[in-house]
């Protein structure tokens, strides 16, 4: 069966129903210690059935893998049975109106051939790393997911989303320093592992010695990957209903929200746009299961550019159609990319370093966890690259450190904004969002403890 036939089969028979078929193909390659350690190609197909029973609730069943007509019928029956037992959801709404987009087109696919260029570059990276006594590790993945969204109300939408990850970590032989670089690999032809390796190798120059740091407050330049991870956490907390309930950093003191409040003087804008150049993502809403800020009844909604923070002011929170209607606020669903930008500037990360008198350059963040959700207080560690900057130059490397910070508070302490560039959030790199972020200069960044890692 084709994906379209599976969707149509799921919609056969009476009832209000949404069928989502995701056809996914993935090729991956993993390496460590200058040798390949894993690889694979995976083809799979997932059907999600969302049944809505008027006067009752909704039932959601998803089946990945073997999908014949019997399996589809069984999934529909299970979803219907669940919906009949469920309580009416507060966000109940008629299913979206008819619309069609690329429905008849076949699914897109990928294979290991997409990573042929990466293999060729890796041979060279391994040779250079061995010659310098370094150890290179990393991962490359290319994926194509084609989503077919159909409903008993007439939706027939298709979207093919290329995606991917390319990251490289290099450790010095004596393990006294390491570096990391990561990028989105939606277009494998753009992969340039050698450039990534060269950039890391320059920072691992053996002439740059280790510097011991003490816990305290430092001026820090966060590389774009760090900013991406922090903004994803910030955006994750930006749900209207949860904020109105008083549980997020965007909850207002009087039971409302902080919408309209200036969060930073840095004139930063955080936006999502399905048509963002180089960061394209689903142009319509796909909700496979209900959750915070996500209503199954919003499936198929066309998405347009939305600013979450406009020129430093909190402008929008994530809303469902239901939340928007009950509050009178705009309907602003979640979108699959995030772009942070500041006042027009061409300053690169290296140029920010060059204008730093005394500070730290942080390459990537890791193990970010919420310590206090109501304040969005995160704890986390730096990873693979804390560099000491003096007089505009990187003069040494330091151990990683633990920090406790709130991304919203950090925005208020931004003193300089670089040029946004596509980046891979290291912790959220498994494609929660595609991101373009600037490097940020932040004052009084708190190191709460020094870690033994480098």
């Amino acid at each position, binding site marked *: 069966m084709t994906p379209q036939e599976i969707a149509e089969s799921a919609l056969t028979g009476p009832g209000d129903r949404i069928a989502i078929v995701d056809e996914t193909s993935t090729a991956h390659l993993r390496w460590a210690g200058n040798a390949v350690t894993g690889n694979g190609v995976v083809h799979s197909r997932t059907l999600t059935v969302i049944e809505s029973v008027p006067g009752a609730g909704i039932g959601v069943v998803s089946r990945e893998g073997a999908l014949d007509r019997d399996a589809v019928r069984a999934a529909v029956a299970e979803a219907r049975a669940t919906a009949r037992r469920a309580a009416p959801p507060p966000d109940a709404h008629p299913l979206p109106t008819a619309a069609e987009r690329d429905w008849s087109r076949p699914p897109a696919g990928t294979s290991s051939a997409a990573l042929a260029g990466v293999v060729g570059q890796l041979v060279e990276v391994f040779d250079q790393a061995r010659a310098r006594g370094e150890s290179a590790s990393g991962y490359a993945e290319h994926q194509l997911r084609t989503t077919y969204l159909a409903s008993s109300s007439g939706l027939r939408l298709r979207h093919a989303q290329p995606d991917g990850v390319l990251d490289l970590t290099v450790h010095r032989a004596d393990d006294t320093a390491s570096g990391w670089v990561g990028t989105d690999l939606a277009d494998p032809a753009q992969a340039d592992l050698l450039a990534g390796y060269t950039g890391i190798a320059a920072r691992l120059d053996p002439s740059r010695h280790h510097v011991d740091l003490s816990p305290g407050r430092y001026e820090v330049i966060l590389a774009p990957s760090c900013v991406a991870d922090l903004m994803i956490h910030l955006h994750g907390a930006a749900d209207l209903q949860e904020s109105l309930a008083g549980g997020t950093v965007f909850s207002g003191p009087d039971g409302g929200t902080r919408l309209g409040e200036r969060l930073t003087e840095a004139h930063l804008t955080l936006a999502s746009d399905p048509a963002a150049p180089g960061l394209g993502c689903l142009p319509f809403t796909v909700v496979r299961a209900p959750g915070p800020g996500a209503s199954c009844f919003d499936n198929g909604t066309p998405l347009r550019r939305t600013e979450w923070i406009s020129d430093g002011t909190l402008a929008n929170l994530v809303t469902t159609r239901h939340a928007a209607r009950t509050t009178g606020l705009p309907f602003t669903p979640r979108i699959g990319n995030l772009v942070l930008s500041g006042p027009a500037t061409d300053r690169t990360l290296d140029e920010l370093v060059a204008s730093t008198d005394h500070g730290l350059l942080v390459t990537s963040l890791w193990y970010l966890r919420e310590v206090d959700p109501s304040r969005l207080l995160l704890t986390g560690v730096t990873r693979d690259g804390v560099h000491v900057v003096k007089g505009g130059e990187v003069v040494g490397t330091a151990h990683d450190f633990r920090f406790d910070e709130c991304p919203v508070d950090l925005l208020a302490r931004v003193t300089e904004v670089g040029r946004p560039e596509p980046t891979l959030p290291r912790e959220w790199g*498994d494609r929660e969002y595609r991101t373009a972020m600037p490097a940020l200069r932040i004052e009084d960044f708190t190191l709460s403890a020094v870690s033994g890692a480098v």
Partner: protein
Amino acid sequence: MGERVRDAAAGCARRPRSSPTGSRTTATARLLAEAALDGARRLGARHASFRLDRVRTGQLVLFDGSVHTAHDSAVTGLSVQVWHDGVWGFAASGEVTARSARDTAGRAVDQARFCSALGREEEPVPEPVHDGTWSSGFRINPFSVPEAERAELLAAWSARLLAAPGVEHVRAKVVAVQEDKFFADLAGTSTVQRRVRVHPQVVVAGGSTTLRTVGPPTGRGWEYLLGEGWDWDAELAALPGLLRAKQHARPVVPGTYDLVIDPSQLWLTIHESVGHATELDRVLGHEASYAGTSFVRPGDVGGLRYGTPLMTVTADRTTPHGLATVAYDDQGVAAQSWDLVRDGVLVGSQYDRRTARVAGATRSVGCAFAESALRPAITRMPNVSLAPAPGGPTTEELISAVDDGIYLVGSDSWSIDARRGNFQFTAQQAHRVHRGELAGQLSGVAYQSDTRAFWGALSAIGGAGTYQVFGADLCGKGQPVQTAAVSHGCPTAVFQGVRVRNTAGS
């Protein structure tokens, strides 16, 4: 490195008379395996394995007694892993047919050829041939319980809590998982296994405070929610009072404290600082770019002092109802148990057939696991547990010996650096201990330490009466990332002079 391994597969392998997945299904799986393995052999693979899995997950969430989310998902697929001319290749497909099995074998060999310019690996260590069928220890399959009945139980729990003073909202959920796995390889091993696990969880909210049950995920069936293996009635009864006490908690004064850590909190510290730190693939740097490495070095086994002599940590895939308990791993290796830390010294590690030689072993300890057939098997943690002290004290006795400390119950946030060194943990409940007595709850408590310093501060350990088993069912690792479930047993334990921060900043 001479790690001592106890082969205890017989201890856990409860072999039912018939296949847990049905004889017809198993016969189909064998035909698919034959197609795949024959294809791999013809293409020159020296080692090849075939897996056919179905992993079903049911999640039911109630908010204030009403069903909020009911989601049932299943992942079915087949995969082939080959070792061809010294290179591994993996391919998987969601299409479960003989043709797909053959094609997938061909693609796995293609993958090995594709990567041949990037280095070769040693041959995997051998394993005796097994032909086994096994089912985990559950009585009532949760998927056999009508969803309405499942919802009724959670609704009753919610109603009971909502009636209590101070409780404004209740979120109750249960996640149930059934794993059916078939494995076969060119050596002749063929195994069929079914595992079931459940994880109920209730969160109560009042004022600006929340409190979560500590009852763990477990390798049991629906009987667990009815009180078999955990006293839910007692925990739900205590929850409102603990919530009210937490609402009135006093901010902790930052400093160093003696920590009395309950098993419901300590299991996660064991998981992060011992479990992951002793995975050999991390030690070798295989996770350097993602999940992280370890402060443990390849030559440390047998000599590294990990903690005080009170510390003995075991690894096993055999504990009844353990989340990592199996009869055979995903490379066809029989389940075993062994020591990781004995009397405070590192004596073992975790490895699979690919990495065993590096450990100086001639046989794998059976740590290979894949979340489904659509993922390659990688080294994953077995059940890792801290042994109690023979004839050791009760929790009350441990608390009574502390002059100025904190008693921590239930896990909350956690974070550890990429070498499993510096960490920070918080708890569901933090009780002040003053002159041997509990003296009210504290807020903002986060303890921060380094793995070896922390275990080097272990000063007292509870007896068998304090020992309880907890665990994680969403532990992520690998690229592509995959999750695993693992149990950790431990007694109550005391750690002297641990740094405590106040996350509220006061």
